[in-house]
């Protein structure tokens, strides 16, 4: 167990591409932090720098009380779970899990004991003598988890460990990984581009975009008060509606549609207005005229897509509420309206 600290860590690849602008954050002991962001935003780069698989161009990385910038991956006392499992195909499950311990020079009985304990925990006991190619995807991922657990590392690193699994297994493994992490109380960094995984697993989420940290916060902070339009539209499905408007005498959406409620402090002129699809509800007393053109059935919910004042807008309504295309009025729930700078997208 250990806390992790990054101080102005930056990554420039040899070809000159700056994959990560200098960034700093702390991961407290025992916390599971999820790195989330679109493809190519630098999640893996950041994770691999923490693992020691990628050199740190600038800045300082501390794991526990040690600056580990130049420490070999094997000596950082970390364990990593890869997207494609990365199991050694020629070794049995037991050998796969024990290989790291063997390299550390542990006596064989002790390795066996640890492997058996881990296998027991992961329901892998009956597969210990199989080769990875005789296992299903979910079982392989478990072996990869087992390989990480047996080493009792200070830090777990996960790089999209579930993205090769089908949806159902993914849900199950997600819960299992979280339970294991809680049980060992091991500090973890978990990379994903799946926002459901991010929201459900994280103690804290770090949202990355183009090599920059957009926001760090708990899932409810990220969802409830996104720091930028990027975070607002990235986290949440369907994403937050973003409308251009202005602040003058009260708040208006372009086209002269007045929005009730408080207006941003100390800001006038053009602004981006964000409203989550579930933060509005159809109501006769509503202020927003909504033109519905498409209805999507999701089972538990119904999504209405259409326009407000010529700008596209979506609304989520519970399944028991009737909906039809045409014009309707929308009422805002309290605290529904978010304001963002119309140029740099930052929250106001």
């Amino acid at each position, binding site marked *: 167990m250990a806390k992790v600290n990054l101080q102005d860590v930056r990554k420039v690849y040899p070809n000159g591409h700056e994959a990560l602008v200098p960034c700093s954050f702390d991961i407290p002991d025992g916390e599971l932090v999820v790195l989330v962001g679109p493809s190519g935003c630098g999640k893996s780069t950041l994770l691999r720098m923490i693992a020691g698989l990628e050199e740190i161009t600038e800045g300082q990385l501390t794991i526990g009380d040690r600056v580990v910038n130049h420490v070999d*991956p*094997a000596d950082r006392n970390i364990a990593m779970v890869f997207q494609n499992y990365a199991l050694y*195909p020629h070794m049995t499950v037991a050998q796969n899990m024990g290989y790291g311990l063997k390299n550390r020079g542990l006596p064989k009985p002790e390795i066996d004991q640890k492997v058996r304990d881990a296998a027991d925990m992961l329901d892998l006991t009956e597969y210990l003598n199989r080769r990875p190619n005789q296992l299903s995807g979910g079982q392989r991922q478990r072996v990869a988890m087992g390989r990480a657990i047996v080493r009792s590392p200070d830090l777990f690193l996960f790089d999209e460990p579930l993205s090769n699994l089908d949806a159902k297994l993914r849900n199950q493994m997600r819960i299992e990984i979280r339970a294991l992490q809680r049980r060992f109380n091991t500090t973890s960094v978990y990379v994903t581009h799946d926002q459901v995984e991010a929201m459900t697993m994280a103690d804290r989420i770090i949202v990355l975009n183009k090599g920059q940290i957009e926001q760090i916060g708990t899932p409810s902070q990220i969802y409830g008060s996104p720091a930028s339009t990027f975070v607002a539209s990235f986290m949440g499905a369907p994403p937050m509606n973003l409308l251009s408007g202005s602040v003058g005498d009260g708040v208006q959406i372009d086209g002269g549609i007045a929005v009730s409620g408080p207006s941003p402090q100390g800001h006038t002129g053009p602004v981006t207005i964000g409203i989550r699809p579930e933060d509005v509800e159809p109501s006769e007393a509503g202020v927003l005229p909504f033109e519905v053109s498409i209805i999507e059935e999701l089972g538990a919910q119904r999504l209405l897509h259409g326009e407000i004042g010529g700008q596209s807008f979506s609304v989520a309504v519970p399944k028991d509420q009737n909906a039809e295309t045409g014009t309707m009025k929308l009422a805002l729930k309290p605290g529904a309206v978010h304001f963002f700078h119309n140029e740099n997208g930052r929250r106001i």
Partner: protein
Amino acid sequence: MTDISQTSAPAKQPVIMGRRRIRMSDVVDHAVLILGALLMLVPVYMIFASSSHDAITIHREGLQFGFGEHFAANYNAALFEYGGFTDSVNGVTMLTNSLILGLGFAIGKIIVGMMAAYAIVYFRLRFATFAFWIIFTTLLLPLEVRILPSYEAIQAMNLANTYTGLIVPLIASATATFFFRQFFRSIPEELIEAARIDGAGPVKFFIDILVPLSRTMIAAMFIIMFVFGWNQYLWPTLITTDESLFTLVRGIRQIIQAYADGSTTPEYGEAAALAIIAMTPPVLIVVFFQNWFVKGLTESDK
């Protein structure tokens, strides 16, 4: 009531009276294949059949189709009778020499090729690509092209008439390096990273991960290289004058020549027997390792 599809099923199967249509193209294909196979096999068979006749018969009537009575005698002579100018070499010695050359050649090439490929693929060498292409270019310079300088060098190092001189100059291998390089590059990056995190240093990684993963590749290389080494003729002829170092391939010629110089009939039967003996080990190796061979060259994903 019976199921409709069941009752009607027999009617749908026309009775075939053992007359499968044979397509013309099949006939041609097979004819070509059979012809090719005969072309390869008949000479081998003739040598085999001839190896059971005595020298006089062969001298008078040429190679034989039927089997004669000197089978045991010929093979016995070929294997155990000492011959040559110095009477210091028999079939068994030559067989041993050939085996040493074939094995040394194959194992040496595999070790050198694997290590070269390992260095090129996994280490950040300054001129890795350049080095690779330099190695690759040596494909254009087979032994026959550089035979004189090679001979000079071995001579100067006093390695003529030694196993070292016989094997070492042939070992550096662009082919093996190339195949292993391609293979190593197909091993997923994550596997290497997982091994790094598991604390496998360069040597451990090579021995614990890379060698076992490459085993089909190694087997395939071994077959090719063994047969190649076994069949070497020019270089052994040049570098060994000591008869106790003769290989089988050389020995066959030696038998015929040695006797042809004299007044007696060349021991054709013995020579044929020796030819069959020379063919057997490579054939056995290919037959036994065939599966590995095919796997090594075709299996891509690990």
